[in-house]
């Protein structure tokens, strides 16, 4: 007797025994289970007060209402960014000061040891400086942003966001759960891509994976926040300035969400055709977040994780930049040579050769794009001390001719370009396909190029800069 015939016999047996049709049996079974559960619950659970449950429902009605849902969402976004931007200023300056102090001590040690100039240049001016830049610029905003975001997540706000955004995603032919995976993308796009597993339909999962990069991850927030702080608000008072920068970053995020929806819509009518599947989203009860736990966990799991990654990638990148800045090709440094080669194309996008090169060299991790750019501008002398935003402003505007258009295009391109190496490899792993990994890089880049070019030509033709 083989298993196949045993199985067939068993099925035949079942067929004979069937009292009614199979789907009727299934309904019957489900009904009995539900009735039993209802009965048991009624016997064992008692409500000792009349009020209480209602209040939560009322909160939900407001949070997910058509009128208030979006203003509240935008308001929370503003609060989170404002605390991040305003709060990060001081620790950032403090860290920069300490780290650069260590650098001078390191330089002294190297001189003491009679180390060759190139060793000092490569290790201290290249590797160490980039690392301290990354740490002092990234650590404070992350250490504030992540816990705040985790608190919202822990309290149960994310499903409400998904609920609010659901109808938009549906209209875009995508899955409502994409709102959740998109939210995870704010932390890290690679994590967002992995979270796409919660979307069952392969078509909608693909859309969510390909568009995840349109929300700025943590590696890109410092660039966006930094540029907003330098170019928006001008000479206004610090408070006004950080408030304006906050609004700018929040608008950029909203813009990213809009691009996500537009591209999803485009994909669902071209590469990933189909109808959106429906799903039930449960609105979990609000819970008081475990504040201590949240702070500790988000510091260790997220902040340190991202920072370590940034440092690991930034250190060799710093070395490579230093080498490129110090090798000469036909009279100019390799760095300038590459930048000059990229420059004509970059100009069409409102950028310059150095900016575009920084994005390209930043492929391993978005965190290092800005540090690379600064290094490129300061080549030879390597990275100078840029504790204050004023120094940064001086470098960009006075020495390299940045306008607000340059800043805007850099931010737009930061929002819409290829995902970082880690995210790309994650996409390759999750989709089991080199093709979709390739598309995941091509689609946002194409969007970014078109967007920047349109903005640049529009602004220039109006003579605004």
């Amino acid at each position, binding site marked *: 007797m083989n*298993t196949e015939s*045993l*199985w067939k016999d*068993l*099925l035949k*047996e*079942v067929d004979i*025994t*069937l*009292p*009614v049709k*199979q*789907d009727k*049996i*299934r309904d*019957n*079974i*489900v009904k*009995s*289970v*539900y009735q*039993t*559960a*209802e009965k*048991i*619950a*009624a*016997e*064992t*659970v*008692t*409500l*000792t*007060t009349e009020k*209480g*449950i209602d209040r939560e429902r009322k909160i939900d009605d407001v949070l997910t209402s058509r009128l208030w849902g979006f203003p509240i969402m935008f308001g929370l976004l503003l609060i989170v960014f404002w605390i991040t931007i305003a709060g990060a200023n001081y620790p950032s300056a403090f860290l920069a000061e300490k780290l650069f102090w260590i650098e001078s001590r390191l330089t002294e040690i190297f001189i003491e040891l009679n180390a060759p100039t190139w060793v000092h240049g490569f290790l201290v001016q290249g590797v160490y400086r980039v690392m301290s830049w990354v740490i002092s610029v990234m650590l404070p905003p992350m250490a504030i942003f992540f816990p705040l975001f*985790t608190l919202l*997540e*822990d*309290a*149960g706000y*994310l*499903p409400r966001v*998904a609920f609010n955004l659901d109808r938009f995603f549906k209209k875009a032919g995508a899955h409502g*759960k994409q709102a*959740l995976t998109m939210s995870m993308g704010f932390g890290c796009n690679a994590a967002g891509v*992995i*979270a796409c*597993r*919660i979307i*069952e339909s392969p078509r909608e999962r693909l859309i969510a994976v390909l568009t995840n990069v349109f929300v700025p991850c943590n590696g890109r927030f410092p660039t966006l926040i930094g540029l907003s702080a330098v170019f928006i608000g001008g000479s206004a008072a610090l408070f006004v300035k950080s408030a304006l920068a906050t609004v700018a970053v929040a608008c950029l995020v909203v813009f990213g969400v809009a691009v996500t929806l537009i591209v999803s819509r485009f994909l669902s009518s071209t590469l990933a055709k189909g109808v959106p599947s429906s799903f039930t989203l*449960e609105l*979990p*009860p609000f*819970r008081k977040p*475990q504040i201590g*736990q949240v702070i500790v*966990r988000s510091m*260790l*799991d997220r902040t340190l994780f991202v920072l370590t990654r940034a440092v690991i990638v930034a250190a060799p990148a710093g070395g490579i930049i230093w080498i490129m800045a110090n090798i000469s090709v036909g009279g100019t440094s390799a760095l300038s040579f590459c930048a000059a080669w990229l420059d004509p194309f970059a100009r069409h996008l409102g950028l310059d050769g150095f900016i575009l090169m920084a994005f390209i060299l930043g492929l391993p991790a978005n965190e290092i794009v800005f540090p690379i750019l600064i290094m490129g501008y300061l080549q030879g002398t390597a990275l100078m001390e840029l504790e204050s935003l004023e120094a940064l402003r001086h470098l960009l505007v006075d020495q390299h001719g940045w306008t607000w258009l340059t800043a805007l295009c850099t931010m737009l391109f930061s929002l819409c370009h290829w995902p970082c190496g880690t995210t790309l490899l994650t996409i390759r792993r999750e989709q089991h396909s080199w093709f979709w990994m390739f598309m995941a890089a091509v689609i946002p880049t194409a969007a970014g190029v078109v967007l920047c070019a349109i903005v640049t030509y529009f602004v220039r033709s109006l003579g605004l800069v």
Partner: protein
Amino acid sequence: MKHKEISLIAENDTIIALAGNPNTGKSTLFNMLTGLRQHTGNWPGKTVFQAKGSFIYKGKKYVLVDLPGTYSLLASSVEEKIARDFICFGRPDATVVVLDATCLERNLNLALQVMEISERIIVCINLIDEARRKHLDVDTGKLSETLGMPVVATAARNGEGLAELLKVISEVVAGNCRPKPKTVRYSPEIEKAVAKLKPKIKNLLGDQVNPRWIALRLLEGDTSIEPYIKKIMKNKVRKAKLREVLA
């Protein structure tokens, strides 16, 4: 992929599965018991793949498997299938069904379905602190009596009830506490059909699976269990042949 997961666990490890509705704090409980840091968050569907960790209680090692959250075991989604297959065919030494104390009625559906598959079950009423805050009183004694299995109330977030839970788990695993699940009774015609099929299934598959549960699945036309049934049949046929050769 799932088979690999199961086989990764060593043969003589004591396996405890954690099942429950989405967002009932399974991952929090998992973290508290294992000391691991599986990411938790207040939204359903966060545990997308099963996490494994271990803990030691009174000198004995337990492997804890955090199953994805599901509302039922009807195998109509990937998560439901993963959870069901693990409880049924992964043969854990005990299954802890985590229920949300604040919406017990909906959560009990899952508990009742798990009880049909396996006997070694511990019902864990989690988020009991939240239920108290909402002035909901859960009579765990009565619940335990009605279900015929141990019931422990916990608030995993602050560790309340965890010592009791560990004690009950160890008792169920050791066989000192034998749950006698009072399973759902269906309509007379279904029960009659089940009674008819049960001996045949038992004869075919032996003690490896619960014949009542298999009978119910076959009656409702759930064919997703086919590969597992065939596997068990194959093993039995092989063993029978071996006996023939030896005799």
